[in-house]
């Protein structure tokens, strides 16, 4: 646990400073958490909803957080679960097949005014959408955020070896997709 985490945990234990401590947590980690969510759900409005749920859940569960992991790891875990839950609920609402879900998500992405990718970046996002959700997570975390495999292991509960293999396969699939689609 780093020094900031120790200070924050001390403040969180004090009822008078708990809110202030949590505000600090939100301000320190919101951007990282947001981008982690956004890369999964793609659209800004959805990412905003999921991030609110993430921090609300964290706030409601803060008393049971014992500091056995970094605060960032804990937040990432909540954000990951909330993102996956959101995508599952969305899929159920649409009642469409997996293929249709991907096309729908890509269409929503292209229509999102907060997406400014060029043609190649668009194609890359389309390729990433073809990956299974867990593999998408691994790819996004490694490729865009350069999170270490050890930290990923804490967040996702998957071994480093499995994560490396997953990322390697994801890269191959994406590159194959990009070549075939060209």
């Amino acid at each position, binding site marked *: 646990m780093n020094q900031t985490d120790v200070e924050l945990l001390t403040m969180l234990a004090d009822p008078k400073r708990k809110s202030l401590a949590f505000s600090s947590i939100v301000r320190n980690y919101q951007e990282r958490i947001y981008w982690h969510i956004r890369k999964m759900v793609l659209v800004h409005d959805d990412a905003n909803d999921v991030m609110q749920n993430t921090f609300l859940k964290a706030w409601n569960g803060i008393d049971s957080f014992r500091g056995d992991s970094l605060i960032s790891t804990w937040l990432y875990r909540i954000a990951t679960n909330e993102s996956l839950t959101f995508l599952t609920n969305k899929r159920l609402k649409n009642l469409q097949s997996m293929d249709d879900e991907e096309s729908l998500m890509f269409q929503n992405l292209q229509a999102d005014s907060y997406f*400014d990718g060029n043609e190649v970046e668009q194609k890359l996002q389309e390729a990433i959408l073809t990956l299974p959700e867990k593999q998408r997570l691994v790819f996004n975390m490694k490729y865009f955020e350069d999170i270490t495999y050890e930290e990923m292991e804490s967040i996702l509960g998957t071994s480093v070896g499995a994560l490396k293999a997953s990322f390697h396969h994801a890269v191959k699939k994406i*590159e194959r997709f990009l070549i075939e689609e060209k």
Partner: protein
Amino acid sequence: MLFKVKVKVMETNMNLNKIGNRKPFTVPENYFEQFADKFETQISIKPLSPIKLLRPWLYMAAMFMGVFFMAKIAFTVYNDNKLTATENYELYVMSQLNDVENLDYSEPIENENSKK
């Protein structure tokens, strides 16, 4: 040969290292500042009302009252059933004796002696 070169070039261009890892997403202006402010308002501590403080105790009291009344009803029903069973038995025994038999047993012994 030319085809193979073309494919190689395509593959190189589609290599992820060439594409880069820029995030092609943006956010509304001041989004993060506003998010933090809004969230702080959401979690600002409000004092708990007396009802909210007492609620767990009220739930417990209601639960014990419920258990007490259920036990009372069960005991009353059990007692009633026992009484009914006793009454029914007495009625059964009386029904086995008819009126004539009852009269015979009720006549005094001297009547038999006078007949002789």
